[in-house]
């Protein structure tokens, strides 16, 4: 058996090529389609994750890192106490009772230890993983100020990878703050500072400088997080929809601290929506 393998390696480059090229192409196309990815083949891989961790420790001023971490933890705790992280349980009684707010979103702070904006499909690596309660398909938002970063795609014990907003398959449900029209935010692969808002019908009135916020329709991001502002818009000939350029509020190139959003009522929401879909 061993001898046959050796024979192929020695004389038959073509066979080895066909075998390995099929494997690579298969990995590329199968992994690109699905949402959850194999952690072993990404930088959530333990060895590379550790390497990235060391590098970011060297590049960061070591004393600041410790201070930063404690501040971020404190901030995440405070942020989950804000009203927009709660589920409003009051039923039009005029006054908001103390016990009518339930915890809906929970925020876990994490540091970005690897990032890219230069590719067509960009990913980030975070220094927190399943041990810290991070789950796939949860949203990632920027710490300290508004702006969204992406969606967690794979998780292992200590690290997780995030599909950046700057990705071919990234779709975020967003709306215009002034009048509530909602559309889908995606990225066309060109300028990392501009994203595109689609499916807003052209009979709606919009104007330059309108604020774009998260809609809260998906359970990835809480409602009302500012994403960016309308930079420009135009109609394509024959289309019923605007084509809108949105200037992102954060520079995805230099994010360091993020919050991972965990929707505690996700299961409940998905279950009720599932009933509709099945009918």
């Amino acid at each position, binding site marked *: 058996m061993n001898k046959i393998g050796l024979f192929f390696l020695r004389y038959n480059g073509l066979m080895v*090529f066909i075998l390995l090229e099929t494997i690579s192409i298969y990995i590329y196309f199968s992994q690109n389609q699905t949402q959850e990815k194999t952690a072993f*083949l990404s930088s959530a891989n333990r060895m590379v994750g550790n390497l990235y961790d060391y590098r970011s420790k060297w590049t960061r001023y070591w004393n600041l890192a410790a201070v930063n971490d404690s501040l971020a933890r404190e901030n995440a705790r405070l942020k989950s106490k804000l009203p927009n992280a709660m589920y409003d349980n009051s039923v039009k009684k005029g006054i908001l009772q103390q016990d009518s707010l339930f915890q809906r979103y929970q925020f876990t702070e994490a540091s970005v230890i690897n990032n*890219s*904006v230069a590719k067509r499909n960009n990913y980030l690596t975070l220094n927190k993983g399943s041990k810290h309660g991070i789950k796939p398909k949860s949203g990632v938002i920027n710490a300290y100020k508004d702006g969204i970063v992406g969606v967690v795609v794979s998780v292992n014990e200590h690290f997780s990878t995030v599909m950046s907003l700057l990705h071919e398959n990234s779709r975020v449900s967003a709306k215009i703050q002034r009048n509530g029209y909602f559309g889908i935010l995606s990225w066309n692969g060109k300028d990392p500072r501009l994203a595109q808002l689609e499916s807003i019908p052209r009979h709606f009135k919009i104007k330059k400088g309108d604020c774009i916020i998260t809609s809260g329709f998906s359970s990835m991001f809480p409602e009302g997080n500012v994403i960016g502002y309308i930079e420009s818009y135009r109609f394509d000939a024959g289309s019923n929809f605007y084509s809108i350029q949105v200037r992102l509020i954060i520079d995805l190139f230099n994010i360091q601290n993020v919050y991972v959003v965990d929707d505690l009522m996700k299961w409940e929401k998905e279950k009720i929506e599932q009933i509709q879909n099945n009918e």
Partner: protein
Amino acid sequence: MNNKYIYILFHFIILILIQGLVLQYVGYENINLFIYPLFILLLPFDLPHGIIVLLGFITGISIDIFYDGYGIHSSTTVLMAFARPLILSIIEPRNGYEGNQKISIPALGLRWFSSYLAIFLFFHIFFYFTLEDLSLSWFSLARILVSFIFSFFIILLYQYLFNSRK
């Protein structure tokens, strides 16, 4: 003999680390810089073809892990490793290669080396970006050209600085 293989392993680790920890962050906007194809480029002449393709796969998968590429670098590198003998035969000097000759600038001359590097690197970058975009446009052609020019000079510089002995 043994020494040669230790050198190849050492070179592999160095190039993967330069690519994964340094060059990955130097690229601007849509420009990517490549140095790891140099590993396949410099493998000795007397290695069997199958081994070269296998080493191409290992290199590509390692870079994929750093880049979250999920197979894109390994597809490209396996293809280029397979095409290496073809490229070598196209630009073969008049008196041929010697079996145990080392591929380097002093051994084969700057002119030969830069045409070898240019052909190899251009097709590598071309396949990489085509696989990434799955279409061709003026925009992706511009990316290919700029990435190619910068990567070419980085590799030449690297060769001069660290690998110029015979």
